[in-house]
């Protein structure tokens, strides 16, 4: 009775008459009078039920027929019928016996249309009907089209080891698992055991230990673990799953013309849901049957989603890998995703997009200031210049004080944070899926290193969702990525070729495919601390509910390569180890750094993703998050990158950053009053000094140094007009205290990191700062001439082997 009940349950659920939850309720409460009660509940009539059950329980299955020696499918027979008809009527002619009996496999018995059609070809034949599921039928038909019918038959024919897997071979257990009625885990355990038996010999003892360790730690399916670790390809895994599920594998058809996809059908589902649950609806097969690509045939949630949209339909499953589903999504939602990646923010919040460099009021203000400046210069020449000097120096003095407070506070809290994350209740099963976006462009040489770095992440690999964002025209990197044979958690996302060709656009495009609860970005050459994702999870779980993002520190592995890399390391250490923790401590807005910023994916989507027109989209996003009431934090973890070691390349990179700061400053100052209301005066001022201040400092610094050196050489007395009274004292404070503190604070950060050898180089900062000024003028020029142009930083120039030290 219980077997029949199970079969019944499966049938009802698979047809969408009843949900697994309903079925549980029904069985639990009314098991004794099931049929009567189903009738009463008006799910189906009693007679219909009895008929269907008895028919299903006494039919001959094609798998059993094929196991009889001498039985095989004659592929010539199917050629007598158009394939559309075979699919529509759901049958397949299998064999014509000497007794003039045509063996046909049917999904539904005794269909008069099938009989008529067969008799048109063979008028005298007697029909012998075999039961076949839609999936099996589809598998055989596809096998036939691909010339792989014998292999498809073999798959159906393949007997399972009866001793070990008796339980899963039982149709009832399968039915239970398929329906999601029993926990997939039970079935999955059996699958795991068989995969383990098959794979055990091919794995080294170390690999076996690793797999067992991961499974003991995470409880994830063995197949998932092996694919994530790269010991089993996704396709092999699908093959093995197929041995139990007897479902066709679609992978070879994805991306070819053989696969017919109903584009309109896919529009009925959210791409996000399809990505998260790994399915993609292909087409209607008949009126009430839907063919769906699915990664895990035992995932009952997919059935729920499908039945929610189309109640009562039959679901015909075909197996596909995660990459197949990604490819299908990318293929059929390409334009949609691409448009969203570029225009989403512009459409939703045009005032927050940098697509427009200057607004009319900003231009008028600029014009007004210019006119006023010219008038002052013509009427009060020295007074005007002295005024400029006074304002500049006053600004510098405040900025110095501000940075001193931030740095001391940052240095204090940064170190106190250390170790607290270890209080994370580390239960890998409960860890969320983590998406890692890795935009790459023309960087084939870094792909193997990148993949190795990602492998080193201390995060359950089956919970990792790495998206390699490749420009579709960048064939070199794509080939290198394929050749690197990345583990299963890596997916390739091809970014459609369109303007603007920027990293934020690629990230936005990748965001559409992200499955993770959290998301981060790494550059191709990044080496994150292995525990960084865990620390980020800790930060999110322990942070306030409006914590949208946490930024990890960036530093350089080639810090000792030359003057530039040393100075860059000093600068980055100071920025990420002192200033950002200081900003966080005072809850000021934080401009995010280029990579290693970790987001709550839902909030990131709410924020509209990155601004593809802003060349420091990360800094802009940090400020936008603050404006919308979210908090941005920092975590005590480091990602090691390659410091730019060539001056020209460095200036280009820096010019992009400063141009981005200019864009960000302009965007968030379009309506200063509104910004003050949203951010609060304190945060607004902090933002002005941090973003605006950086620009002003770099642009004005060369002039001040020039004046100083000119005076030092000539001792011209007319310069006294530029520095009357207090201005002179302010200037001296800037010159002496400002530079001294700038150098000193730079030292403190590398001291904390114990990069002692860099300490003396901090004294050379005034020279290094001049490079910033050169870059800032380049940035200013480009802001007017090429505002969205992305100065690509060339990576892989370093001769230093990667290490984190």
């Amino acid at each position, binding site marked *: 009775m219980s077997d029949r009940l199970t079969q019944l349950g499966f049938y009802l659920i698979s047809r969408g008459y009843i949900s697994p939850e309903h079925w549980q309720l029904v069985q639990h409460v009314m098991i004794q009078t099931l049929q009567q009660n189903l009738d009463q509940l008006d799910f189906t009539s009693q007679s219909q039920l009895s008929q269907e059950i008895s028919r299903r329980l006494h039919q001959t299955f094609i798998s059993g027929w094929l196991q009889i020696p001498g039985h095989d499918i004659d592929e010539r027979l199917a050629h007598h019928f158009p394939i559309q008809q075979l699919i529509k009527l759901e049958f397949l002619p299998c064999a014509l016996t000497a007794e003039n009996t045509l063996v046909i496999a049917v999904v539904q018995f005794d269909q008069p249309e099938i009989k008529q059609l067969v008799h048109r070809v063979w008028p005298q034949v007697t029909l012998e009907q075999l039961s076949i599921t839609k999936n099996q039928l589809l598998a055989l038909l596809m096998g036939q089209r691909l010339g792989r019918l014998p292999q498809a038959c073999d798959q159906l024919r393949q007997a399972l080891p009866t001793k070990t897997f008796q339980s899963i071979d039982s149709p009832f257990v399968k039915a239970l698992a398929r329906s999601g009625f029993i926990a997939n885990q039970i079935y999955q355990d059996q699958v795991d055991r068989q995969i383990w038996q098959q794979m055990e010999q091919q794995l080294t003892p170390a690999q076996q230990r690793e797999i067992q360790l991961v499974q003991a730690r995470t409880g994830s399916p063995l197949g998932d673990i092996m694919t994530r670790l790269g010991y089993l390809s996704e396709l092999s895994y699908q093959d093995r799953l197929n041995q139990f599920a007897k479902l066709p594998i679609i992978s070879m058809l994805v991306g070819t013309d053989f696969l017919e996809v109903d584009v309109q059908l896919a529009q009925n589902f959210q791409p996000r849901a399809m990505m998260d649950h790994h399915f993609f609806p292909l087409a209607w097969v008949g009126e009430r049957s839907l063919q769906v690509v699915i990664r895990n045939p035992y995932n009952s949630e997919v059935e729920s989603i499908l039945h929610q949209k189309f109640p009562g339909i039959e679901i015909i499953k075909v197996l596909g890998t995660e990459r197949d589903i990604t490819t299908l999504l990318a293929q059929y939602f390409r334009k949609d995703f691409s448009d969203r990646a570029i225009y989403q923010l512009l459409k939703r919040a045009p005032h927050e997009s940098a697509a427009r460099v200057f607004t009319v009021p900003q231009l008028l203000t600029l014009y007004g200031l210019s006119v006023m400046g010219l008038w002052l210069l013509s009427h009060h020449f020295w007074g005007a210049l002295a005024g400029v000097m006074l304002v500049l120096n006053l600004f510098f003095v405040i900025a110095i004080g501000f940075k001193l407070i931030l740095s001391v506070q940052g240095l204090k809290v940064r*170190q106190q944070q250390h170790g607290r994350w270890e209080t994370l209740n580390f239960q890998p099963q409960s860890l969320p899926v983590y998406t890692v976006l890795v935009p790459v462009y023309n960087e084939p040489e870094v792909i193997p290193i990148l993949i190795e770095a990602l492998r080193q992440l201390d995060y359950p690999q089956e919970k990792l969702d790495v998206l390699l964002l490749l420009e579709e025209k960048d064939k070199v990197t794509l080939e290198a990525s394929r050749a690197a044979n990345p583990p299963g958690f890596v997916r390739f996302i091809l970014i459609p070729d369109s303007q603007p060709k920027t990293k934020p656009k690629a990230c936005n495009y990748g965001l559409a495919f992200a499955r993770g609860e959290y998301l981060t970005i790494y550059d191709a050459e990044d080496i994150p601390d292995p525990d960084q994702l865990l620390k980020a999870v800790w930060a999110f779980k322990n942070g306030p509910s409006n914590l949208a993002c946490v930024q990890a520190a960036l530093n350089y592995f080639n810090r000792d390569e030359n003057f530039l890399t040393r100075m860059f390391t000093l600068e980055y250490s100071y920025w990420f180890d002192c200033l950002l923790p200081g900003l966080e401590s005072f809850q000021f807005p934080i401009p995010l750094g280029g990579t290693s910023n970790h987001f709550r994916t839902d909030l990131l989507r709410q924020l509209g993703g990155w601004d593809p027109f802003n060349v420091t989209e990360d800094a802009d996003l940090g400020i936008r998050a603050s404006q919308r009431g979210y908090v941005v934090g920092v975590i005590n973890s480091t990602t090691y990158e390659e410091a730019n070691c060539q001056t020209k390349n460095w200036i280009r990179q820096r010019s992009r950053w400063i141009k981005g700061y200019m864009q960000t400053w302009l965007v968030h100052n379009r309506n200063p009053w509104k910004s003050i209301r949203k951010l609060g005066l304190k945060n607004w001022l902090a933002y002005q000094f941090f973003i605006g201040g950086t620009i002003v400092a770099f642009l004005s610094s060369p002039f001040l140094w020039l004046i100083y050196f000119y005076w030092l050489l000539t001792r011209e007395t007319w310069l006294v007009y530029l520095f009357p009274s207090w201005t002179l004292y302010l200037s001296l404070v800037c010159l002496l205290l400002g530079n001294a503190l700038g150098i*000193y604070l730079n030292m403190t950060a590398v001291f904390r990191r114990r990069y002692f050898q860099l300490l003396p180089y901090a004294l050379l900062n005034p020279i290094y700062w001049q490079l910033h000024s050169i870059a800032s003028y380049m940035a200013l020029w480009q802001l007017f001439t090429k505002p969205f142009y992305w100065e690509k930083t060339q990576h892989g120039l370093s001769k230093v082997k990667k290490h984190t030290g």
Partner: protein
Amino acid sequence: MVSVRSKSTQGDRSLPTNLDSQQGPAIWAVRVLTILGLSGLVIGLDWQGYIPQPIAFLGSKAILAVQGPEPSFVATGYAFPPLLVYGSALVRSPVILQVISGTLLVGSVIRTMGKLGVSRLWQILWTMLILLHPAFGLMLLRDPTWVATTLLLLITLRLLWQILQPQDLPLSFLVVLVGLTVAGLMLLRFEAWWGLVFILIALWCLLLAETWQYRAAALFIVLTMSLFAIGTCVYLNWLATDNPLAFLSQPGSGVRLPGLDSFFVQAGVGEGILKIISWMIQIAPIYVLLMVWLIWRTKFHLQVGLILALPIVLLLINLWEGLYTPNLSQFGVYLALLPLLLGQLPSRQSWRKLLITLGLAVSLVSSGWVLQQNQVIPDEILLWRHLTHQHLPELQPAQQLHQKTIEQRKITAYLFQTRQPQQHILMDDRLHFPILYLLHNTEGLILPHQYEFDVALDYPNQWVGWIVVAGARSPLRSQDAVRRPLAQQMGAEPDSEEALTVPGFHTIFDSPYYQVLQRS
């Protein structure tokens, strides 16, 4: 290698009880009252016309920096300590600066005493004995430099102590802060320049548990910021006078205030140690007692000894440099450090409490005795007598200073009343800075740093309405940049004890210390 920091034990320290949280309002009330009292005293003394020399000096430089006449930097750039000169200019008055820094210092003392692991009664008693100590009081009322120095020394010593026994704050953070506070000291006390070597040695010994690379880096960090501070001072001197060490030799720099020449004491190391011990036993025996006690009972004799010896070493360097004057204010630093020392000693046993109380009482009484015996500079004698409503002693320096201050006020009042706005006053502010401070206005002054000063000296009839110079019997007469050339022009000896005569001018005020001439 001995792990210095890892050896620290809880037993070395008394158990601090956070009484703040238990009796917060009471503590706050005491703090507010003390702050108000201090502010009232400092400002009240200023209003009553008692202006201590250091405040008058800082005030005059601040006025010059703020009001000019230009190029004011030439007159202020070589002034020492630059931190307080420009700090006073920033807050417009050294008195305000004194109130701010003094309030911080007193607040810190009260706060630390409130955390001692003894009953509130003992806390109050000891706090009162510290606050009422003449050295501490005189420092708060008359010497902004020592108040600021004490604040920075207190922070530095606290940080060094935490480096020895780290608690919440990380080591590198503490080292960075030490770098900042020590750099501040360089801009306050010249003796700290030499003391830097001692601080670096102490730091090296405190970090014995770390690698030598770490120690070297820590020293580099502290040294760098201090060298920046020293470099700043030297650069300012060079900018203002073309002499990087002008502050050591030029009059008006503040390192040696005019009129105190006879009080400066110089001694070698051995003699200096003896002198300091003698002073310490007379003024702050409690510091010596607690210092010895702490060194004796700690495991880190060397490190604790080095930390606690730092203020004494600075004093010794001061003596060696010949910049030491016998004044009680500079010993205020030891009183301010007492809460830090008491915090490190368990004082639960009664005899210990009694011993500490006795030590504090003896310190208070003996320093009062020193004051009463007039063994200090006249400025302090005047203030002490003024505060205690006593008659001035018949001591010549004290009487002279008193007379001078009366004359300064008279001259200022006279100039206020009779000077026309367009009339200029020729004066050497480097010597007569109290008059400049009392005037509180530099309009119409012609001072030595100005371009027109030499012209005014050559043609006083055309340029100035008033001339203020040192009096005929003033010890400063030969240093007066106005009197000296004018006397030479008249064919008189610069050191002559005759009154200055300038054609076209007549003397309207003449005293042993000042002479004021008005254009006829």
